[in-house]
């Protein structure tokens, strides 16, 4: 029963994400409603844990709530940024993936943790946190590099524009205005070449 609600919640969240992507222009309110529903479901997940009396006072419950909210924050901000065309899809993919992984940890903390421990051989939660932190660090590093490259390219383009504009100005001054420097005045056009 517990798992059934979990799966239902995931499906609804995915559906609301789809709403965002597909009907992002016309039915933005519907997507928002879907996301709200997802948030409600996250609350339900944690509510389900309440039925297990042993976990009532455990810090795990709070942790699930916090990670759930965090994942939602990441997902909503990402999807909204894509919707407003502030973020390209190729970068959004990374953040949607991150949000979904965090969500996974919020919904199935034990099994996700067990999987990660099996995968990395790490036994402690702190080690897992270090892995996650390292991942985010790498993401930030990647972005710094992208930004530097972008600035290089921007500088190149901007300089090219400035040079071309100066050249254009000089050409126009030569053609239209009175020549400022008589030495550099264009030679008279050869006869019979009028266009």
């Amino acid at each position, binding site marked *: 029963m517990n798992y059934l609600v979990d799966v239902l919640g995931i499906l609804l969240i995915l559906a609301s994400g789809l709403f965002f992507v597909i009907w992002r222009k016309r039915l933005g309110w519907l997507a928002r409603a879907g996301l709200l529903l997802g948030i409600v479901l996250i609350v339900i997940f944690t509510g389900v844990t309440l039925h297990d009396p042993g976990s009532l006072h455990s810090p795990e419950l709070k942790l699930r709530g916090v990670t759930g909210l965090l994942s939602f924050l990441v997902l909503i901000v990402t999807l909204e940024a894509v919707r407003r065309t502030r973020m390209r899809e190729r970068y959004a993919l990374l953040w949607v993936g991150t949000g979904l992984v965090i969500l996974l940890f919020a919904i199935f903390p034990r099994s996700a943790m067990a999987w990660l421990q099996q995968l990395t051989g790490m036994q402690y939660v702190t080690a897992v946190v270090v892995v996650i932190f390292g991942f985010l660090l790498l993401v930030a590093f990647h972005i710094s590099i992208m930004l530097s490259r972008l600035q290089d390219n921007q500088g190149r383009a901007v300089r090219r524009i400035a040079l071309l*504009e100066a050249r254009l100005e000089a050409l126009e001054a030569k053609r239209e205005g009175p020549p400022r420097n008589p030495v550099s005045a264009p030679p008279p056009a050869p006869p019979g070449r009028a266009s």
Partner: protein
Amino acid sequence: MTAWLNDSLLLIPAYNEEAALGSLLDEVRGLFPALAVAVVDDGSEDRTPEIARAHGAVVLGLPCNLGVGGTMQAGFEYAITRGYRQVIRCDGDGQHPPAEIPKLLAALQSSGADLVVGSRFLDERAYAGTILRHAGIRGLAALLSAACRQRITDPTSGFQALNRLAAFFLARNCPADYPEPESIALLTRQGYRVCETAVAFRARQGGQSSIGNRMALYYALKVALALVLDRARAVDPRFHRERVKGDWGL
């Protein structure tokens, strides 16, 4: 004396310099009527490009702000494509007296250097603003002297004369943010020769320094990091002085 005027270009990087630029350009025009002058406008918000045009300078207008490094790079690219043989650069705030330009060019000719830096600190005890700033410049000078294995007294001076080789190199790899010290280090590392000549600076005639007091620390740290990392980087053989001289026929 006037032989160099025909193939020299005076580059003035300018960002919001409307206060002093006009009088500076008039002064240059009065002293050296034949000298080509290009103002590289780094996306100013004021009337800098209009003033530059009105006072007879060619304007290279960057559509957005790139910082001094990108601005100078645009200027060097322009100088190279236009075939100028010497490039002088000075600031647009009137700090660098144009009357000293012949001195720089004479040093460029006589010393055989590729870059001549006009130094405030060579023969007199000049003073650069606050104590903090002065100390910062001295520290930077020591670091840069160590990196270049030659004595550099005024690493942040933007009053320079370059020949075609150095201009070509900087047109291809100009350091980004605060380029003066780092470009000296890069040039010496790539086999170019740098020397200094004593020049008296004036007080700034208008406008704001691009480096406030808080930025000075960032400046010092950034340049120090850049100097260390440049030493760690391999020499780029494509831009070594002799190769540039041969390959590009400069």
